[in-house]
């Protein structure tokens, strides 16, 4: 998955040796679905852009377009391609078809599409195994809950979110098989008010720990107000709730973005699919806080075990909600199953819209 080859290193050295002019710089463009200031998903992507600009200041020039609606993204992507970009990161699933269409028109430009599944000769895809982090969260939550009920604020029923819920529940069940998970779908990625209302509803119904798959820090703050605990999302949101955040599943795209840019610079770039997790540094857990030392140690051990491949959230046996077997004992869920997950594991009461 990590494609640092000797050739690439040599190429980079050669480039370092030759003097570069401003016009020789590789222009790298980023397309974000949300505002850079969301302090969540788009913010994390922009951190990787800034990291890239810092890592290769003499060789790249970066630019971005924010708040690009998915249905109106083709023009934005094509505009970047026409503006002389050599590499373009399109960072939301809904940009998939427009990215492919523009890529057909600009065969020399390289494209990197996040969280999609269609590739082309000049289109790579990449995503992160967010669910690995959520498994760790599930274990922490089940250990710390006093009411035995955990609240989960979800955005939209897509496989990424569903696999996250399942991994969280499997992690929780590995500690306490009787733990209950209450799920609320808010049908938005970002609406602080509605996320806070969902948090209040879950806390009122007996949840004492909140997890979320929406972008704002509102649920964390709500937990803090009521003296309860919660997990951050996308970014380390500790500053919003220093007394409530247990940890956060942080997306760290910097390593990948820098690696791919270097590959374009040295000519070794090839279309491929990357699905990185904790091991690759793409999924990072924010510092464990607001928990006793033994729970922290357990969480850290789990992270290490996942990185070492000793623990896999979807290792069998995994039973579906309806009682059928999804993954047999001794086996591990294949990637396509996780990528397309549209069923709950046993123990979740919610009904998934089909």
């Amino acid at each position, binding site marked *: 998955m990590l494609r640092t080859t000797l050739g690439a290193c040599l190429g980079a050295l050669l480039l370092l040796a030759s003097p570069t002019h401003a016009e020789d710089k590789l222009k790298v463009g980023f397309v974000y679905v949300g505002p850079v200031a969301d302090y969540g998903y788009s913010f994390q992507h922009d951190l990787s852009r800034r990291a890239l600009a810092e890592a290769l200041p003499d060789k790249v020039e970066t630019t971005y377009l924010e708040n690009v609606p998915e249905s109106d993204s083709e023009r934005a992507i094509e505009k970047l391609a026409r503006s002389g970009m050599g590499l373009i990161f399109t960072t939301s699933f809904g940009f998939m078809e427009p990215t492919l269409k523009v890529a057909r028109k600009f065969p020399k430009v390289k494209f990197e599409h996040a969280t999609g599944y269609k590739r082309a000769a000049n289109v790579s895809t990449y995503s992160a195994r967010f669910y690995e982090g959520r498994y760790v969260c599930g274990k922490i939550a089940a250990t710390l809950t006093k009411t035995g009920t955990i609240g989960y604020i979800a955005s939209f029923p897509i496989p990424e979110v569903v696999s996250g819920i399942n991994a969280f529940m499997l992690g929780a069940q590995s500690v306490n098989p009787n733990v209950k998970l209450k799920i609320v779908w808010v049908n938005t990625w970002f609406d602080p008010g509605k996320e806070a*209302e969902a948090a209040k509803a879950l806390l009122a119904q007996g949840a004492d720990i909140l997890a979320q798959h929406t972008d*704002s820090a509102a649920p964390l703050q709500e937990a803090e107000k009521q003296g309860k605990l919660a997990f951050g999302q996308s970014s380390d949101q500790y500053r919003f709730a220093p007394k409530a955040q247990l940890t956060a599943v942080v997306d760290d795209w910097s390593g990948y973005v820098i690696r791919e840019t270097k590959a374009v610079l040295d000519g070794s770039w090839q279309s491929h699919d990357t699905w990185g997790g904790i091991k690759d540094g793409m999924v990072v857990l924010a510092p464990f806080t607001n928990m006793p030392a033994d729970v922290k140690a357990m969480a850290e051990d789990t992270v290490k075990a996942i990185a070492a491949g000793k623990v896999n959230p979807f290792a069998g046996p995994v039973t579906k909600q309806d009682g059928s077997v999804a993954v047999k004992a001794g086996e591990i869920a294949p990637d396509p199953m996780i990528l397309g997950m549209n069923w709950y594991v046993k123990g979740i009461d919610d009904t998934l819209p089909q």
Partner: protein
Amino acid sequence: MSLDMIQMVLVTVLTAATPLIIAALGELVVERAGVLNLGVEGMMVCGAALGFAAAVETNSTLLGALAGAGAGMGLAAVFGLLTVGLAANQVASGLALTILGLGLSGLVGAGYVGQKREPAPHLYVPGLSDLPGIGRLFFGQDAFVYAGLGLAAGIAWFLWRTRAGLILRAVGDDHAATHALGLPVRGVRFFAVLFGGACAGLAGSYLSLAYTPFWAPAMTAGRGWIALALVVFASWRPGRVVAGATLFGGATVLQLHAQAASIGLPGQLLSALPYVATILALVLLSLGRRRGGSLAPAALGRDFTPHR
């Protein structure tokens, strides 16, 4: 459900309704004066941004709220200048104001992303606030909630019990006649517009100072539009604004509770509930009403120039 659980639900409903109540009451006064300002969302989001920025800088929630109201008022002044002063089209100007407000709020808020403040303090009356079942609901809210309810009562009193209120309503119903009587039509309208802007800004600052105490771009998420609809729902009556906002907020909160209790319906269907419930409630209300004669201020949305 226990008594405390019911109270928790009611508290959530009331706080969810508060930004809608404050913004809608402001717009109600504007529309009663015969002006339709569709820019509530823009004024609200500016109030949220500037309110938060000022509160961070001065470390005072009160000054933040005032700055938020001031931001809404500033944008409203632009709107008033265009529509009342220059007789520009009200609908288009209001929408332009929304775009302007979204842009300005982003510029103002850019430096405050990722910062947080303590939420606005809640009232605490020893003894009363701890009463089981009702203590938190009646004696444990923050100042915005009480301000919203007080505003409803105050505006009702103003519109139907004072001479100034009578003039304002007259201006909204027949500007030509009030002008002929020598009343300052444009002045009244301009002040009404400013008041509406202050309310929208205050409602926005409630979001960034009390409800979810941080700034995030476009954090109003369409609440300004709902406030506009609630004015219509309320037939331009302050008491009904409170009822409508509570109905809307209640439907929002109840559908979240229904989901948490796993009743097994698609999330989209439940999310649509507040909108559908509002339409149905309005239909039922109008079934019980005598037909004929619109309830809207007669001159609503029509521009006025003294020489006509």
